[in-house]
Each structure stands twice: as C-alpha cells, then as structure tokens.
C-alpha cells in the first residue's frame, strides 16, 4: 500500500513528507509506548501512535520508520513537524482512534505487523 492510500484510507491529513506519497508500506505498528516500537523489527513500516511529543519522531527516526500516523485527532506540534520534515518523514493525522485506524489499514491490505519470537 502506498502512503497516499494510507492518507485516503484514514481520511487523514498529510502534514509533511509529500515526497513519500508513492512510497510502498508493507507493515504497521500501533503503539503509544516507544520501547515497544523499538522491540519491533520490520521494514517499510507505518507507525500509528497517540503519543504526541518529539520522542515519537525520534523513535521513528531511530527505527528508520518514515511514516507516522497520529491517531485520535491529535495534532503534532510545530517542533515535531519541523524535526520530521528535516528527516524527510511523512506525518499524517487522522480523526480515527487507534483501534479503528489499525482496523481500516488492515482491511485495506496491510496485514503484516511485528511479532515477538517468544512470549
């Protein structure tokens, strides 16, 4: 699924990263705790989160995640958008909750998520 399709599926708004609209995304991670994101080992990932602070951007940067969706209608701050823009990342906001946003993306075709080797 392309980033443009994610924006459409989530009826979202793209706040940065227009150059990534044609980029393919194959898996998703929904989390508000950033260490859980860092225990996640996939490529071509979209991160869905309700955490609105600079650490969400930095965590994505550490993990080479290029696309972040802020759920529940949360709006990132100017600082966050600036940091994302300087890293070439796409920021999307959506009115949907985490559950509904993940559900919509799953239904639209993103079926891969991280799974721990053991629990």
């Amino acid at each position, binding site marked *: 699924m392309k980033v443009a399709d994610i924006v459409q599926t989530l009826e979202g708004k793209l706040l940065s990263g227009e150059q990534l609209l044609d980029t393919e995304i194959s898996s998703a991670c929904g989390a508000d*705790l*950033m*260490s859980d994101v*860092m*225990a996640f080992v996939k490529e071509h990932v979209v991160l869905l989160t309700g955490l609105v*602070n*600079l*650490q969400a951007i*930095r965590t994505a940067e*550490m993990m080479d995640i290029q696309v972040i969706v802020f759920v529940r209608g949360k709006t990132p701050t100017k600082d966050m958008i600036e940091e994302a823009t300087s890293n070439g990342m796409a920021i999307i906001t959506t009115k949907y909750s985490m559950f509904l946003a993940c559900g919509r993306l799953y239904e639209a075709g993103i079926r891969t998520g991280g799974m721990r080797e053991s629990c």
Partner: protein
Amino acid sequence: MKLHYEVPGDDFSLAGKASTEVKKALGRLGIDPGIIKRAAVAMYEAEINMVIHAGGGVADVEILPDSILVKLEDQGPGIPDLEMAMQEGYSTAPEQARELGFGAGMGLPNIKRNSDDLHIESAVGSGTKVSITIKLQQGATDQA
C-alpha cells in the same frame, strides 16, 4: 572518531537528541544501516533511561575500525536489582515517564537485544555506567 554529549536531565524534549546526532554521524561514515539502527536504538534507550531515572549524565561514543563503543555515565540513584531490571516488563519508572511514551520495562532488554556486548556497572546512591559495544562486522550476531 570520538563524540561527547552532555545529556540534560531537566528537559525531556531534548532526550534522545544525542542519539539522533550519533545516528546521523554514523550514516555519514557509510556504516551499514542495520548496524547503525542497532547502535542508535541501544544508545537511545540508554539515553532516555538516564533522563528518566538519573537526571541526565554524559554520553561518549567512540567509533573504532571494528566496533562502535557507547558509554553513558550518570550520577543518579543507581539500579538496586540489575537482574530484575533486565527483565522485560519490569519498570521502576515514574508514571510521568509512561505519559511521555516510556517506562514499559523494555529499555534495558532492548539495549541488550541490540548490543553485541553490554556491561552495566551500578551502585545505589552513586550512579550507573552503561557500556555498549556494537561490532561493525555484518552478521556478528543473529540480531544483525
């Protein structure tokens, strides 16, 4: 190549900035992206720990021909039970840390998972030293 950072403990918006800069520096050196990611994640978790638990500290990074060494040192309260702290899900972080997206008890396990060698020296009341080694050779561990 050596890099040195002072990590302030009173401004959470700066937490992780040193690791971000290290990741960029490693990228400029043309190091394998998978190795950079492991070094960046390990250092980032350790840097966040230092801010959450110890009121900041110092971070030193040394890039050697065969490895990346990351050392973080703080004057914080120390880790009373290191064995417990290494377990996934065990956390002593304050509620405020969770509001900021951390404190899930995954920090130290994530550091261990991404390091080739991890050494933690900690004494209650006098602080903690974390030494992380990431080998530059690809396939050095099964985590690469």
